[in-house]
């Protein structure tokens, strides 16, 4: 089962996301600020981090930098109110896999779909096709 870390100071937002993920069989933990987020990230094993950029104590950008340093592969999706392309671009350079806007266009379904897609980039069918195309020797070698 996948685990998601939600680093978000807005508890109402975080709880809705967590509950929606749970409905979709994804475990989620909530860290209420950047410091706690980093601590929990180090302690637990997470497949994806959902990160708010505007937070007290340590802002999201800083958290992202720390996470990227320690784990270059974990998926990170950021919440941002920034409409500014430059900000998004800067973050993409540090390495984010997606961003979500808050505000009047906020859509929980989109958030959940995006997270599920990142967690399982291939459908069951895709996985079967992939396995079928993989040379048998590959599996044999692995067994050794």
């Amino acid at each position, binding site marked *: 089962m996948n685990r998601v870390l939600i680093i978000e*100071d*807005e508890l*109402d*937002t975080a709880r*809705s*996301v967590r*509950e*929606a993920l749970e*409905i979709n069989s994804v475990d989620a933990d909530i860290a*209420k*600020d950047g410091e706690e987020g980093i601590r929990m990230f180090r302690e637990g094993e997470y497949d994806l981090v959902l990160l708010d950029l*505007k937070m*007290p*104590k340590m802002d999201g950008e800083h958290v992202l930098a720390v996470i990227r340093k320690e784990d270059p592969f974990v998926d990170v999706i950021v919440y941002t*109110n920034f409409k500014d392309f430059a900000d998004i671009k800067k973050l993409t350079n540090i390495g984010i896999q997606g961003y979500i*806007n*808050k*505000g*009047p266009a*906020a*859509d*929980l*379904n989109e958030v959940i779909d995006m997270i599920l897609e990142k967690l399982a980039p291939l459908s069951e069918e895709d996985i079967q096709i992939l396995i079928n195309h993989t040379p048998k020797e590959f599996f044999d070698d692995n067994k050794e």
Partner: protein
Amino acid sequence: MSSRYISQKTYADTISELRSSGKLEQAIAECIKATKAFPDNNFFYRILGDLYRQNGNMESAFNAYFEQIKLIHGHPELVRTFSRFYAYLKLIDPDKLTTEFMPRVMDSIQKEEISYDIKEALLLSIGEDFLVDKGLMELCAKTNSDENLTEVRKTVDKMAYERNMGSINVIANYRINAVNRHASKKIDSYFLTLLEHTELFDKALLLIEKIMDQSRNPIIIRTLLRICRKKEDYTIAEKLLFFDDNFINRSDFNIQYELVYYYETRQDEHLLKVTLQKMKESASRSLPISRTLYNFYLRFNMFEEAKEMSEHIKLLSNTEKQHRYNVTNSRIDEQFESEQGVWFKLKELVSEQEHNRQMIALSDLLKGFSHELGQPITNIRYAVQLHQMKIQRGATSKIDLENLLALILRQTKRIDDMLARFRPIISNNGRAEWFNVTQRITGIFEDMSSRLNMHCIQYLITGDTSITIFADAVQFDQVFYNLILNSIQALDGYKDSGTIKVDISSKKVKQIYQVEISFFDDGPGIPIEISKQIFEPFYSTKAPISGSGGEGLGLFIVWNILKMLDGSIYVNTSYKKGAKFDITIPVKQTDGGT
């Protein structure tokens, strides 16, 4: 000869009859006819003066008597009428007498329209006044040569200081009427400055017209345009200058600066923009000029250009010292007014910018506000969408629904609280008043005393208790209300009791008096790394709890209000015993003066 006499007598009789039967208007009309029929007879002018005086028209009365004394050569005893009228005017309208009527008399004496014997008689009869001041006549004569510049300056500056406008008018008229001004170029430009400074714009324009007959240099053209701007009437400039398209190209920065205003008045947006572009091309390497341009862009709502220019200014500021050095070393007087001059213009602009500046502050504020509204809106949408998800899966409960409704109410309340906190800024009605700073701040502490007591926080106000400022008191209150609230929140949970101190002093910076207020608490303080961020909207170190004010608006509001009040606020990072804010507010907002 006899028919002439009869005719004069007929006029005199008719006038006398009309006058005694109370038909003053008709008497005046008849008398005017008489002066036209016998223009060299001083008698009719005297009667005309009497009639006007009786009718209450002092200006026309003066004109009539004035014509009379021009005609009484050889009969100095006849100045009596004029002298009496003079004494009378001195009682009823001394200002008009000294600023308007007497300079004309002096002027006539200079031009020898009034004969020598009459002049002497005038000096005798109204002797106690400046007319007797032969020094003034001598001074006029001295203005013909630049060699006397220092002396003339000293005397005339003193007159201006004492507001001796009568004498200044006399000398100004003398300068305007001077025939040869080749030896008095410096004196003329001095007088021009003086006339502009004393706001005798019409006289200044007359002088400019005379100077321009003989020479045209950028300074005089610039002055002409500037005075027309101040007078809000470009008629003279349009008469003297040829505003073709090439005029912009041929002009230096200082003239271009004035042209911007001229084209603004003419509502010629195209040429206005051409001028701004020209200024930008030719002079944008200078910091003061860039700032001037920036302010122009704001004035004409050219926000894109303003933004670009503000970045340019940032770049230039870094090399400002170097730049100053260069300018000092290669100053070209005619082309380039001193930086100080440009600064003066800038100051002039700043007051005009007041409105725009507030608009920008407000637009920043609204941007930040709509940005933060996103949070409660997101919460509501997520909660509703989560509920929809549950309904689709048939997994809702009564508790879920109750939670949803509670959340919606909580978040809408939050929006309302946010609005309430913005209200003091948004409902700014610009009502400024004089108030005592210490009293006002004490009042805010008193209003908040229950909250302060609850947290065992004491306060202390020190410094100059006499300082008063002219500002919007409601906005001023909001600054300190929010700072105190900020301190209460910082102290809460940090220690059981605390102290807030406020120190008030005043200082003169760049000719402007400002009040300096230090605000300290003995809470945890503000780390250097966030000392700039804390004034950003919605930066908060407190977890958001609805209604507690922890949404990070307080200091942003403070910062915005101070911006509107023309003041500033900084975190004093060298203070280690808690948080310290240094605030400055001008005693009176810039309005071009000190």
